Structures are given as structure tokens and as C-alpha cells.
């Protein structure tokens, strides 16, 4: 018996030690779609106008106003073509708002706004001529045109407040068919069907004989669609490249968007052209120009790169995607695998569940190579020695090094934030800003006017404006808490004095403005569409300040573009809220047991590089790199100057009168509270706001409610 047990024990140990759970690495698979940039030389500075393939397979690329390039070898080499006729066309059309397309023989068809509709033009071997003026109302504007069988020309146009499709006889210029369609970005014609691809990522099918919609299907958030020669539908978005076979419903993902051109900084889709050989050409707008890429199947390309870098983040981020693109450009042999805790559309798992899974991976040696610390117990990771020391990874003089103190412990830096958000006060230049303390700010608000009891606040409210505007308790609490957090949360627990000040200040403002848990709706919001189908909603405090409903604005500054509005009315100064706090965002760290530490460190460098830092902020925070912030501020000033030049009749003020570099340099303490603590404190604050308890009771309850959290960590 003893011998049997001993044998069993030894066998079990041997099984464990042999690592029988490991799955041997699979042999490298080959064959995948690869991306190749084929922008014609000299066209990088020009925006794409059109992308076509002739019947003989030649590629034609139109850019700028107007350059025409042709390639017979799939974009390897390009030959510029004569476009002297273009000025003549513009003169003939009487407009430069011309939509162009090439037919299979290389002849040019053009559509331009005309006095009584849309003018149709043709340029062939025999020269340039006007075909006629087609239907639609006066003021119609052509967006796209395509040629079809029987010399039909299809024109997608804006007309009468909507979008219409005109089917025109190319020989006579007569309108054969006209019907309303969805606002579309592009379209294709297959037999008697019109396939329209909307900007919202849908494919809408119309019957050309009657103009009725017969089918509709989604292609993906923000996807741009295109109809292939074989009837297949290509969808291109920030998620990547997909293909739906003709008549089918299964989507085949051919090329991942992550880490590729789709998500590169300041890059957006311009046009898509499926080619005869099954490849795909995509035109992009880049900052200051355009780019053209070819996506073709390479049977020899390895499915996985020589090296893999696993990047883990709780949530996706456009800045992170841009960093992946930038990193891959420098390191094409490295596969970047982005693992998101919350996949897009996933609402089932809580942050705690995901963090538990991550912890299990960290402890079992299956750690990702790079961690984005947002939402993670980062201080705990640092204190327990789970993060690599990254001190000296970047030249700190190039950055606002005070912002790197967020993740510094005992003189060592364990992570670098790529973005920061700042609780700030906006006010008219020259006016007094009470940013000495939260109490002083609240007292100044209480001394001023209140908000109207009900109704929307629009227009200028005159000289007696309320000092601040908040739409509800949440908006008020979020900003003040962010400012107060560094002083509020200590190693030993909540600081009672800081908590009392926070509750007292926010309570006074809540009472002054009659705030409640529900939004008051007194100011309308502005929603902006971002790349990748995401949306950004401007803080209502900014809207109120912009429209003169409040003298000042307390807000979490997420982007210099937040300030684009206020400049319209007055010169605006920006000051840090009391405490000078900043919120580190998209903070990158390397686990000590990461497999690819050196690559991970390079990635951190990519995240902090100039192209990524100076790219669109996507409202994820301000850059931490000095040069990038200066570039962004200059960009903003240029857009203000451009607007002023365009509208000299309006006397707009100078706009930005603050030094953003000084603002970031002045930020002192990192505000790193986790959501759980914040919500616990907010819950107690609301009981004070609605007078369910006194200030002392609310503070005591909050201290008690957060006591366990701090005691666990002692």
C-alpha cells in the first residue's frame, strides 16, 4: 500500500513537473493579406480625389487639384498624366466642386453643380464637352459618380436637403431615373441593383427600375464599403478589412485594423477600390496629404511575425491604437497582439472579474508584455514589485517630467502616462479666478447668481451670469473630486478635513444651483463623431460657458479642442483647479515577468513619441510631450486665425491667451482614485446633497464606508 501511494505521488509530481499542460508551439503558418504603401511619389502632400481601375488593369489615382497618376504594375511604379484639361473643365463647369470618375477606357466623366441641376461633362480622346444638365434642383451638389452599362452615368448628389441618385444617359444627358436614397459615402452598380454604402457603415440595396430600397445590412461601425467586380462587398474600418462574398452573409476578416494604417495617427479613410485580381486599394487622408495602400494576399507571408508583443488594456483607446500603428511601422517584424479586458460591445463582465483573470495570468507566468494601468490597482502592483523599473527609459527633459511622478515610488519610475486630464477653471481673460481652495471657489459661486429654476438656458445671460454651471450632481462631483483626490486619499484612509471641504463645497454649489441627481437639461449638448465610430459629448459646463450661461467653467480638460468653442466669444484664460491635480491616462508599464521586456520598453517609447503624442488627442487627454503640446496649441491657434480670415466681418477675439505648457508644468499631484472608492464617497455625498443627513453625518458615513478598503491594505 505504501509503495502504491508512493508511486502515485511520484507519478503525479512527474506529470506536474513535465508541464504536460503546455501546448507545443505550432509550426509557423503562412499566407495572409499584407499591406503595402503605394502612394505615387509627389502625391503624399495631396488629398486623394479618386481611385479607379481601367479595363486593362491599370490603376489610376487622382489627387489634389488635379494630379493624375497611372500604374500598370500594381502601384510599383507610377506615371503622371497630363491634366491640362482640368482647368478648362472647371471653366466650362463654372465651378471647382467637381466629382470625377474614369470609365473602363480611361475617359473622364465629370459632374458639377449647375444653375438648374447637375452638369455632366465628358473628356475623351476627342476632347472635352458638356453632355447636358440633368434633373435635380438648383443648388444640387454631386458627391460621386460612376459609369455603367449602356453609357449610363450614375450620380450621387445632395439635392433639396436630401440625397438623390440620378441615372443619366451618357449620350444625351437625359435623366433616365431619379430617386431619393440614404446619405451615402460611395456606391456600386450590379445589374439592376444599386449598392449604396452609407457613412454609418451600412449597405443599402436599391432596385434601379423603381428606386425602392430592397435590402439593408450593417457592415460595421464606421465602415466604408465598396462593391467588388465579382459582386463581393468589402468593408474597411478601424477594425480592419472584411469581405462578404457575393450573395453571401458570412463576413470573412482578412486584415486586422489594430496596429495598422487604419488606426495610424491622423489618418482617415478616403476611398476604397476592389481590384480585378482580388486585392484592395485604399486611399487615406493623412495630416497634410494623402496615402494609398494596397492590400493583397501573400502566400509566403507568415501568419505571425517573428516576435509577438502582447499589450493588455482594460479598455480600448484610440491613442493606444495609434501607438501600435507607429510601433509596427518601426518594427514590422513584430506582431502586436492587443488584448482588451472589455471587448467592444461586451457589457457582461465587471472590471473586478477581468482584473482577477489578469492577476491569475500575472501569477502563472502568462503575463502580457505591456500593461496599460488605467483601471488597475496600479499602486498595489508597484508596491509589490510586480512592475519593471523603467527609470530613464525616456529623455525626461522632452516631457513634462512632473507628470511622471504619478507612477514613481522610492525614486523609481514604474510607468509612464501617455495622456493627462486636468481639472481646470475657464474664465474670461482678465477676470478673477478663485482657485485658492475649493471652499473659496464654492463661496464665490454662492455669492453670485443662481440658475433659473427651470427651462433651457440659451444665449447671453447678461453681465449677471452665474459663476459656474453644472447640469447635475454627477458633473459637479466628478470635477471637484478629481481636484480633491490627491489630498483626500492618503495611505491611512480618507482625510477628514479634505472630505469635509469637498462635501461642503459641492453641497453649497448644489444648493445654489438647485442641482439634483437627474440632469436638468437646461443646456443642450454637442456630440462629435470620432474615428472608429466613437462619439464624444462635450461637457455641458463648456457649452454653458460658451453660450454665456456662466461666467466661468469648472471642467475636466480632456483636449485642447475642448477650448475651441469658448474662443468664439471671449479671450479665455485657463487655470488649474485648487490643488493642481492631474489625472494620468493610458499609463504604460511592463510586468517584471514579461517575456518581451525590451520590445515592451520600445513600445512605451512609441506611446511617448512625437507622432503619437502630437496626433489627435481623441479627447483622451493632453499629451505629456512638450513639443507635441506646443504643436497642438499652434494648430488650434491656426484654426482660429483661419476662421478669423474666413470671416473678417466678425470681430472675434484673439482666442487662446493661456500658456498650456505652464498649465501642465504647474500640475502637481496625481489624482489616482479608483472607481470603487469614488462611487462609495459619491453615494454618501448625495445623501448630504438631498439633505438626508447633515454634513458631519455624511463625512462620518463616508469615512466608515471607506475604512475597510484602507484597512485591508495596511
Amino acid at each position, binding site marked *: 500500500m505504501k509503495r*502504491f501511494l508512493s508511486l502515485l505521488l511520484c507519478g503525479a509530481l512527474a506529470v506536474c513537473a513535465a508541464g504536460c499542460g503546455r501546448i507545443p508551439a505550432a509550426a509557423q503558418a503562412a499566407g495572409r493579406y499584407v499591406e503595402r504603401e503605394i502612394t505615387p511619389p509627389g502625391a503624399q502632400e495631396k488629398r486623394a480625389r479618386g481611385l479607379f481601375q481601367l479595363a486593362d488593369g491599370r490603376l489610376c489615382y487622382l489627387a489634389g487639384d488635379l494630379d493624375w497618376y497611372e500604374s500598370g504594375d500594381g502601384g510599383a511604379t507610377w506615371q503622371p498624366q497630363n491634366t491640362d484639361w482640368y482647368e478648362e473643365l472647371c471653366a466650362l463647369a463654372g465651378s471647382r466642386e467637381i466629382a470625377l470618375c474614369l470609365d473602363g477606357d480611361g475617359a473622364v466623366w465629370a459632374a458639377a453643380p449647375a444653375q438648374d441641376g447637375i452638369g455632366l461633362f465628358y473628356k475623351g480622346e476627342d476632347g472635352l464637352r458638356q453632355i447636358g444638365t440633368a434633373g435635380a434642383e438648383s443648388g444640387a451638389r454631386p458627391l460621386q459618380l460612376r459609369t455603367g452599362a449602356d453609357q449610363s452615368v450614375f450620380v450621387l448628389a445632395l439635392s433639396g436637403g436630401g440625397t438623390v441618385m440620378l441615372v443619366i444617359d451618357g449620350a444625351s444627358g437625359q435623366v433616365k431615373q431619379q430617386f431619393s436614397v440614404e446619405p451615402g459615402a460611395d456606391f456600386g452598380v450590379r445589374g439592376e441593383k444599386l449598392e449604396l454604402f452609407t457613412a454609418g457603415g451600412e449597405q443599402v440595396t436599391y432596385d434601379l427600375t423603381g428606386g425602392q430600397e430592397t435590402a439593408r445590412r450593417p457592415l460595421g461601425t464606421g465602415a466604408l464599403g465598396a462593391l467588388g467586380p465579382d459582386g463581393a462587398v468589402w468593408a474597411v474600418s478601424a477594425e480592419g478589412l472584411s469581405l462578404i462574398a457575393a450573395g453571401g452573409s458570412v463576413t470573412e476578416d482578412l486584415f486586422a485594423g489594430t496596429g495598422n494604417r487604419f488606426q495610424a495617427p491622423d489618418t482617415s479613410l478616403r476611398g476604397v477600390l476592389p481590384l480585378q485580381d482580388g486585392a484592395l486599394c485604399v486611399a487615406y487622408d493623412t495630416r497634410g496629404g494623402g496615402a494609398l495602400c494596397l492590400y493583397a494576399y501573400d502566400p509566403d507571408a507568415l501568419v505571425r511575425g517573428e516576435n509577438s508583443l502582447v499589450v493588455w488594456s482594460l479598455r480600448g483607446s484610440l491613442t493606444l491604437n495609434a501607438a501600435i500603428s507607429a510601433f509596427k511601422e518601426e518594427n514590422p517584424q513584430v506582431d502586436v497582439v492587443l488584448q482588451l479586458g472589455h471587448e467592444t460591445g461586451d457589457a457582461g463582465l465587471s472590471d*473586478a472579474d477581468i482584473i482577477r483573470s489578469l492577476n491569475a495570468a500575472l501569477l502563472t507566468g502568462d503575463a502580457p508584455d505591456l500593461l496599460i494601468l488605467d483601471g488597475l490597482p496600479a499602486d*498595489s502592483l508597484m508596491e*509589490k514589485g510586480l512592475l519593471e523599473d523603467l527609470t530613464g527609459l525616456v529623455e525626461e527633459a522632452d516631457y513634462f517630467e512632473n507628470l511622471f511622478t504619478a507612477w514613481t515610488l522610492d525614486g523609481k519610475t514604474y510607468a509612464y502616462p501617455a495622456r493627462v486630464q486636468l481639472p481646470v477653471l475657464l474664465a474670461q481673460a482678465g477676470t478673477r479666478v478663485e482657485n485658492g481652495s475649493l471652499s473659496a471657489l464654492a463661496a464665490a459661486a454662492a455669492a453670485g447668481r443662481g440658475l433659473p429654476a427651470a427651462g433651457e438656458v440659451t444665449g447671453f445671460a447678461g453681465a449677471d451670469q452665474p459663476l459656474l454651471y453644472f447640469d447635475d450632481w454627477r458633473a459637479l462631483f466628478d470635477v471637484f473630486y478629481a481636484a480633491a483626490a490627491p489630498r483626500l486619499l492618503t495611505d491611512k484612509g480618507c482625510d477628514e478635513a479634505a472630505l469635509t471641504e469637498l462635501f461642503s463645497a459641492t453641497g453649497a454649489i448644489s444648493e445654489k444651483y438647485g442641482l439634483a441627481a437627474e440632469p436638468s437639461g437646461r443646456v443642450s449638448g454637442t456630440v462629435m463623431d470620432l474615428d472608429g465610430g466613437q462619439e464624444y459629448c462635450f461637457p455641458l459646463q463648456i457649452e454653458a460657458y460658451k453660450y454665456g450661461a456662466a461666467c466661468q467653467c469648472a471642467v475636466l480638460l480632456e483636449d485642447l479642442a475642448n477650448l475651441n468653442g469658448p474662443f468664439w466669444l471671449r479671450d479665455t484664460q485657463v487655470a488649474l483647479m485648487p490643488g493642481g491635480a492631474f489625472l494620468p491616462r493610458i499609463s504604460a508599464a511592463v510586468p517584471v515577468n514579461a517575456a518581451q521586456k525590451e520590445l515592451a520598453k520600445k513600445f512605451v517609447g512609441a506611446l511617448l513619441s512625437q507622432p503619437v503624442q502630437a496626433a489627435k488627442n481623441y479627447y483622451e487627454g493632453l499629451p505629456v510631450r512638450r513639443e507635441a503640446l506646443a504643436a497642438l496649441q499652434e494648430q488650434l491657434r491656426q484654426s482660429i486665425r483661419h476662421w478669423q480670415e474666413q470671416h473678417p466681418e466678425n470681430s472675434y477675439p484673439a482666442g487662446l491667451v493661456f500658456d498650456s505648457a505652464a498649465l501642465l508644468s504647474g500640475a502637481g499631484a496625481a489624482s489616482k482614485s479608483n472607481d470603487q472608492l469614488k462611487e462609495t464617497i459619491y453615494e454618501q455625498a448625495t445623501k448630504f446633497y438631498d439633505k438626508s443627513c447633515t454634513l458631519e453625518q455624511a463625512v462620518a458615513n463616508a469615512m466608515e464606508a471607506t475604512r475597510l*478598503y484602507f484597512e*485591508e491594505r495596511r
Partner: protein
Amino acid sequence: MNRRWQTPWRRRGSISKSGADRAAPPRAAWAFLAPSLAGVLLFVLFPFADTVRRSFFDPMGGSFVGLANYQSVLANSAFRLAAKNTARFIAVCLPLLLVLSLALALMVRAAKGGGRLFRTTYLVPMAVPVASIALLWQALFAQNGIANSLLSAMGSRPVDFMGTGAAFWVLIFTYLWKNSGYDMILWMAGLDGIPQSLYEAARVDGASNFQCFCHITLPGLLPTLFMTAVLSLLNTFKVFREAYLVAGSYPQTDIYLLQHLFNNWFADLDLGRLSAAAVLVAAVLLTVILLFQRVLNRGDEL
């Protein structure tokens, strides 16, 4: 105790062990046990051994820290609070559960038709998923839930069940409701093991129902008591699931249990202290179970 009503098996202690009794089980028995034993070794004992090892190392398992983790755990006020609450919970609900489930078992047995309907009814709570219980809990005990509506209708002030010490009694109630059926079945199995001839003999001798219960039923149920008590003790730790789903990682102080602390320490990657605390709890539980077994065995011998 009147020896006439002692159960036959009580006499086994007086039988001298012969060589036949000491014969080892056949090898085939071990062969059948081997897979299960291997599973227990791989998935229970080895991980526990690793936990013991980790309790003496830092969170990453790199450097030996001796008893520092144990000292830290015992000095941690959150651990002391959680241990106190857990002990309090066990001390209150375990006896209540045992008594309640025994009473249910006796009543079901006495019911006509074998009490099949009642048996099923009492077992249904066991089949209810934990998430459903959490939803039910919220519907019943929320600030504007059904319980407070009833209280308001009766003229009483609403009670903050989840935000005050009342949460502890809600937890007790939930545990009793969910596990009574299971323990009732265990008791019923134990009751079935007591020979009816004893009761008949006792009645012939004029024993009342109460005397039968005290001198036949209870002694006969002692082995079942041990098993039921140990299983119920282990089930008390599962009540964390309901508490966590309803009240989150940091519930009201009175229902902050050891698993809350372990859960939070794991999220914080405080593996050293977590392992030390787990070892301490396991040691305490093992001691309690062994003591209980000893007490019952001593009673058995008497």
C-alpha cells in the same frame, strides 16, 4: 441511560478486534480509488501545499519572508473583523440550521404520504441559482423593496436592511432558507438508518414520543450529526456568493466575511497575506472538525 434502548451498533466498541477485522482492504479497492485520489492530490493537496509555501514568501514568490505574512495578517484589523464576523455567522446559523433541518425532517417523516410534496418544496431553494437569489434579495430588502413596503403598510419605519446590522440577519435567513432542505435530506437518511424495532420495543415498554426521541433518535443520529455539521460548516462559506452579488466587495461591516477579504486581497495581488490567512483558516477549521469528531466519538463510547 436505560440500556434496553441502546442501539445495537453501540455494542461494537466492546467487541475485541480480531485478526480478521484488521485485514487490509483488497488491492482492487485501491485501484478504484486511485483516480479520485489522484484528482484530490493534483487539485486539492498540491495547490494547498503551494499555498502554504506562498505564505512564507513575498507576493511574487521570489523572496522568503518567514512569518512576516502571518504577523501582518493577525495584526490586520480587516482580517480580524472578517474572522469575527465569520465566526459569529457560523456560531449563530449552524446550530439554528441543524435544529431547524432536524425538525423539518421529523415533520416530513411524520406527514402523510411520506411528505413527498413537503420534501420537494424544501429542496427547491437549493436549486435556485445564486444570481436569482441576489435579485430576489434586492427586490425584498432594498430600501424601497417589498419588506419595507410591508413595514410601511403596518406603520413601521423602513429598515435599511443592507446598510445596517440587519444585513447580518438577512444573510442568516438566506443561508437557512437555502440549506435547510439539504440538511433535512441528510437527517432523513440518518433517521432511516435507525431500526424501527427499537421504537417498537420502546413503545412496548411504555416510552413516550419524547423519550423515544431523546433516547433512540438522538443517539442514533450522532454519526449523521457529524457529517451534517461538517458539511453545513463548509456550506457557510458559500454564503459569500449572495453577499458579494448584492453588496459588492465592501458590504456592510456586519456581513464582511473572510471571503470578501480574500477576494479583495487577490484583486490586489496580496498573495503572501492571502495565503497566510487561508492557511490559518484551514488550520482553525481542521481543529474544529477534529475536536468535534473527538467529542462525538467520546459520546459514542459512553
